[in-house]
Each structure stands twice: as structure tokens, then as C-alpha cells.
């Protein structure tokens, strides 16, 4: 593990105006109340200057998010001048690494983009390759892939709920402090995460960066007796998922909501993980292969991650809140009951309630994993053959824990990758995160700087942003030298 010697606090609060900038308007009003009418008139410009004083909040190192990012916020009463979600983690060049590599290497290479959602990268990669090759895998392999994805959703969501996001709602700085007051809850979080790990390890060979996924299926099938043991754990996990719901239900959610276009896979047969059309809460309904015709990425000077937007429109939201709202009917009866338990209904636009959506999806993932195990069809072999004899293009999107993950590959006739395009959920949510922060500042003028800074950080963590995923890219302009 890389650690480093302690250094000074990374957070700072700066003011571009004088000391009076921090005083509230009501305090200023009270002070002037005892003065004459003339004096108050004279005082007015002073008060206006105070109100117009620009403040800057800088969080130089965002805590409890994956990767390295910062927040820069410049505002004055009634106006936000600038919001920047600054992602300074260096670009990681994965799309360039893929160029010239054999198509079969894509699942293992792309899974290294993220330590917490490697399965999502593997799934998007194998489906995109199979789309290019025109291959459809048998039902049993499809079931095992979905089971593997359940494991990742559990691992990732539980980690975020208990260790990254719950401290915000409980008023503690981190899970270590939280553990002293909420020992049972933290122990439960650890047990649930371990169950997610167990699924990934059983099917993928190890819990982080699994190594058993290949284009066409798996390198080997898991021993069937291990799946039976796994089922026992998952039934217990499903029971404990109810306790998680009751835990997060008790949180106090800031009164905040904002209209934003929700985008997710939608599958009429099941809650989406590996397959579906891309739909939105407005008018979008497209195949995954049409993604780039409707969405675009652009480089913003202050960020090492590309920002996505809908072509001709703007920001949109992917992730558990979008999935939940657009796929509520496809949730299992148990999961819908769980949503009722916490009062979460489709169409909820309060991003602070994303923790509820994650808790519902944890319950769903356990329930779905048990259902899959009960109905598993043993495939004839671990994989089906996939090969390329001519150039091809394939694209696919799956639902990573944080939302839609799009992969597109151009394959040459020899099976090598010519170009790759990967658009992860955090890139897609960056603009929405900034807009949330902007609206939040305007909606809560009563918050002092410390509380506002904390609320803004919490707003960022609503999205469980994975900065390492977002900085995977590299756009290369190819020049052919004669």
C-alpha cells in the first residue's frame, strides 16, 4: 500500500474580501437597526458591498472519493461566479494502450482502470467485442455474468454507503470515527462487502481485478458446489440488506432537488446490468451502438477528465438514481418493497437520496443473485469461440455501479484493436455535479462557509465519483508518415 508521511491539512477556505464578508445579512441588519433613517440610507451601500463580497471555497483534496480531485467555488450572495470540479489525477492513457493489442486482451486491460468496478469494464469490453464479432453467448454464461455483476454492485455500493457517504449524514469525519458510535452498522457493512467480494472471487478468481472473464465467456467455470455455499451467504446478505435500508432511512436529507435528464439502460425483461437500450427521462431511446451520435465529450481546461453532454443539450445524470427511476417496474418485488420501506419513489430528483437508491440496489443485487443461483443453467463449456476474419466495429454499454459505461472498439481483420473509446459514468456526471453545487449554493444562502463547504463535498459524494475512471482517456491524433 502506498502511504506517505503526514502533511498539513489539504483543505482551505479563502476569502477575497475582508473579514466582514463572513457576517450574515441579518447581523448587518440588526446592527443598523438602531441608527437614524439617514444613517441607514448611508449604510446601505456598505451593506451592498458586503453582500457583493466574493467568497472562495477551495477543497484542495476531496476526501472519501476515489482518485484525486478538488473543488473550486467562487460565489457571492445570490450569485455563483464559478464552480469547478477539478480533476487533477493524471490522464492514464488506457485507450492508447489498447491500440494494436489483441481484442482478447481488452477485458483484462480495461479492468485495470478501476479497482472498485473492474467487472463493469470487463463486461462492457466483452459485450462490445461480441457485438463486433456477432456472437451471442449461451444463457448459462449470461447468467454467470449477471451474477458477477451483482457481486460488484454489492461491493461497490456497500463501500460507498457505509464508508464514504454515511459519515456525511451522521456528522462524523470518517468511518473510523463512525465505528466508535455505530459499531454494529459498520460491522454489517464489512460483512456485506465481504459477501460481494465472495461472489466476485468465486466467479472471477479474486475479489479485486478478477482474472477469469474472457470474450465469449469465462476461462473456467466455478465449481458448482462452491455456488451452493455462496447461496447460503447471499441469503443472509439479503436479510441484512433490509437492515441497511432501515439504517439509511433514518438519515436527514437536505431539502434540495433539481430537474436533470436521467439516462440509463432500460430492459423490459429485467433490471439492467449487461443489456438494454439507452433511454432517458425525456425523449431518448437508442441502441447502445448509437451512443456517440447523441452524446459527446469535450475537454475542459481545468480538468484531466473529459466532460460528457448530450449533443445540442447539456448535462444529464447516470447512476443508481437514474436506473431506479427508469427501471422501477423491473425491480424484484422484494426490492420494490424495500424502496417503499425507505419512501423512495421513481422520479425522485434529490441527489442526496442517492444513498437510498444504492441501498435498494444492494437488496436487489442480493435477491437477484439468489434467483440466478436457483435458476442457473450449467453451460456446456466456459466460453464460446470468438474470432475476427474481417475488420469490424462493436459498441456496448453496461450499468456500472456508478452508471452507464460505454465501450466502442474498431477491430482489424487480424483481431488487433485499431481504436478504442471508453466513456465512464463519472465523466458523464461531472457537469451535473458542478450544476448541483451551483444550485446548492443558491438554495442555501443561510449556510456559513464551513457548513456550505461540507454540503458541497457531500453533494459531490452523492455521485460516488470515481476519478481514476474519469481520467483513463487519451485522445491521439494519428499522423501517417509516408
Amino acid at each position, binding site marked *: 500500500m*502506498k502511504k506517505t508521511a503526514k502533511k498539513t491539512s489539504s483543505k482551505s477556505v479563502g476569502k477575497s474580501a475582508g473579514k466582514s464578508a463572513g457576517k450574515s445579512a441579518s447581523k448587518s441588519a440588526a446592527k443598523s437597526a438602531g441608527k437614524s433613517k439617514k444613517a441607514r440610507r448611508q449604510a446601505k451601500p456598505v451593506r451592498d458591498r458586503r453582500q457583493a463580497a466574493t467568497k472562495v471555497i477551495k477543497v484542495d483534496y476531496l476526501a472519501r472519493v476515489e482518485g484525486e480531485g478538488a473543488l473550486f467555488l467562487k460565489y457571492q450572495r445570490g450569485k455563483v461566479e464559478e464552480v469547478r470540479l477539478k480533476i487533477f489525477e493524471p490522464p492514464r492513457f488506457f485507450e492508447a494502450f489498447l491500440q494494436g493489442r489483441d481484442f482478447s486482451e481488452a477485458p483484462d486491460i480495461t479492468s485495470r482502470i478501476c479497482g472498485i468496478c473492474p467487472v463493469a469494464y470487463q463486461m462492457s469490453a466483452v459485450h462490445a467485442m461480441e457485438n463486433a464479432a456477432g456472437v451471442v453467448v449461451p444463457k448459462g454464461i449470461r447468467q454467470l455474468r449477471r451474477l458477477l455483476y451483482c457481486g460488484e454492485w454489492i461491493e461497490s455500493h456497500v463501500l460507498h454507503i457505509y*464508508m464514504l457517504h454515511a459519515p456525511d449524514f451522521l456528522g462524523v469525519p470518517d468511518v473510523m470515527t463512525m465505528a466508535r458510535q455505530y459499531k454494529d452498522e459498520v460491522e454489517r457493512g464489512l460483512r456485506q462487502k465481504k459477501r460481494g467480494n465472495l461472489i466476485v472471487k468465486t466467479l472471477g478468481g479474486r475479489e479485486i481485478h478478477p482474472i477469469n472473464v474472457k470474450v465469449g465467456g469465462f476461462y473456467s467455470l466455478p465449481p458448482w458446489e462452491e455456488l451452493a455455499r455462496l447461496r447460503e451467504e447471499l441469503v443472509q446478505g439479503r436479510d441484512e440488506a433490509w437492515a441497511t435500508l432501515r439504517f439509511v432511512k433514518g438519515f436527514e436529507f437536505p431539502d434540495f432537488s433539481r430537474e436533470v435528464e436521467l439516462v440509463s439502460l432500460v430492459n423490459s425483461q429485467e433490471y439492467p446490468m449487461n443489456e438494454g437500450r439507452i433511454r432517458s427521462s425525456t425523449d431518448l431511446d437508442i441502441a447502445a451502438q448509437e451512443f456517440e451520435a447523441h452524446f459527446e465529450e469535450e475537454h475542459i481546461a481545468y480538468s484531466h477528465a473529459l466532460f460528457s453532454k448530450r449533443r445540442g443539450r447539456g448535462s444529464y445524470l447516470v447512476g443508481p438514481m437514474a436506473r431506479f427511476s427508469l427501471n422501477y417496474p423491473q425491480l424484484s418485488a422484494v426490492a420494490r418493497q424495500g424502496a417503499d420501506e425507505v419512501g423512495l419513489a421513481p422520479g425522485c430528483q434529490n441527489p442526496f437520496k442517492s444513498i437510498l437508491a444504492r441501498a435498494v440496489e444492494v437488496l436487489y443485487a442480493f435477491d437477484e443473485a439468489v434467483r440466478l443461483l436457483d435458476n442457473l443453467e450449467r453451460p456446456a463449456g466456459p466460453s464460446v469461440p470468438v474470432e475476427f476474419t474481417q475488420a469490424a466495429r462493436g459498441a456496448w454499454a453496461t450499468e456500472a455501479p456508478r452508471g452507464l459505461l460505454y465501450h466502442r472498439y474498431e477491430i482489424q481483420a487480424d483481431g488487433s484493436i485499431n481504436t478504442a473509446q471508453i466513456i465512464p459514468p463519472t465523466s458523464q456526471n461531472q457537469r451535473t455535479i458542478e450544476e448541483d453545487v451551483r444550485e446548492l449554493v443558491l438554495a442555501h444562502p443561510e449556510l456559513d462557509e464551513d457548513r456550505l463547504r461540507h454540503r458541497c463535498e457531500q453533494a459531490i459524494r452523492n455521485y460516488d465519483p470515481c476519478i481514476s475512471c474519469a481520467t483513463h482517456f487519451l485522445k491521439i491524433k494519428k499522423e501517417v508518415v509516408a
Partner: protein
Amino acid sequence: MRRPLVIGVGQRWRGDDAEGPRLVELLKGSMADLADFLVIEGDPLELLDHWEGRSCVVIIDAYEDSRQTGEVRHWCLSPQTAMTAQDLPFVTGGFSSHLVGLPETLRLGEALGRNPSEIHLLGIPAKNFALAQIPPPSTNGGRAAMENEVMQRVRNILNRGVGSCMSQE
């Protein structure tokens, strides 16, 4: 009570971070009768389960420091030293994926009452955590001295038994 556990933490493909796993492989060859040995390359939270029921654990891990590479640091977290994970001179939450690294795991275990009564942390100051770089060979003089020192310290800990933990050595 289960036997002492010696754990090497780190990733073999991240330059000097491989020190923990590599040293544990070395120790295992000569001290298999004194302790159990384990390498953790994945989720450090697993440690809480691995050391369940044990009273003495030795962790060997590389950490980034400007000190000269090869100088071994030894911290002992125990009631005798009154040292806790909070006192360790590491920044937490800065580099580990999604927060949970070794320092966080130690602090979490403490808060949950799941840490062994004696944890020895042998820190190997290191500089290079880049991908796919292999540590220099053990024939290097400084390196051989570091390996000998780690072996000596671990042997002393295992022979001395629990309860004789001194302050930072």
C-alpha cells in the same frame, strides 16, 4: 489462541511496494515453525478477518518517505506502548482506492475492537511505487542489510512472545 501472523502488504508489480510480499516470502522459509505467513495484495479490510483470534501480528509494508531507502522503522501498537493507529505518522485517505488502505484498516479495527493486542508494523521507507518496476537484487549491500534487519526484528518479536512489546524501536 492462534499462532502469530506475519503479513506482507503490497503489490508485487508496483516497484518498492513489493517489499512487503517479498520479505514475507523470505521469512517464511526460515521461520515457518514460529508463525503463520500471509501476503495481502488486495483488499486490506480482509486483515480484520485474518487476524481474528490472534494476539500478535507483524505487518511488513513499504511506505513513501524521504528518508534513505532501506532504513527500517518499527512501530508497536499495544497497551504496553500506549501507541494507537492514530499515532502512526501516515496520511490516511490520500492514495488508497476508495479510502480504505492499511492505516484506515488499523484505525477501523481499533474502533471495532478487532485488532490483536500487539501489532508490530515494520515500515520499509521507499520511493518508487511506479508500475512494473522490480526491486533491486538482494546482493546490493544496503539491501542485504535491510533484509537482515527485518529478519532479526521479526525473529526477536516471535521469540519474545506477546506482552514484551517495547516502545518504538
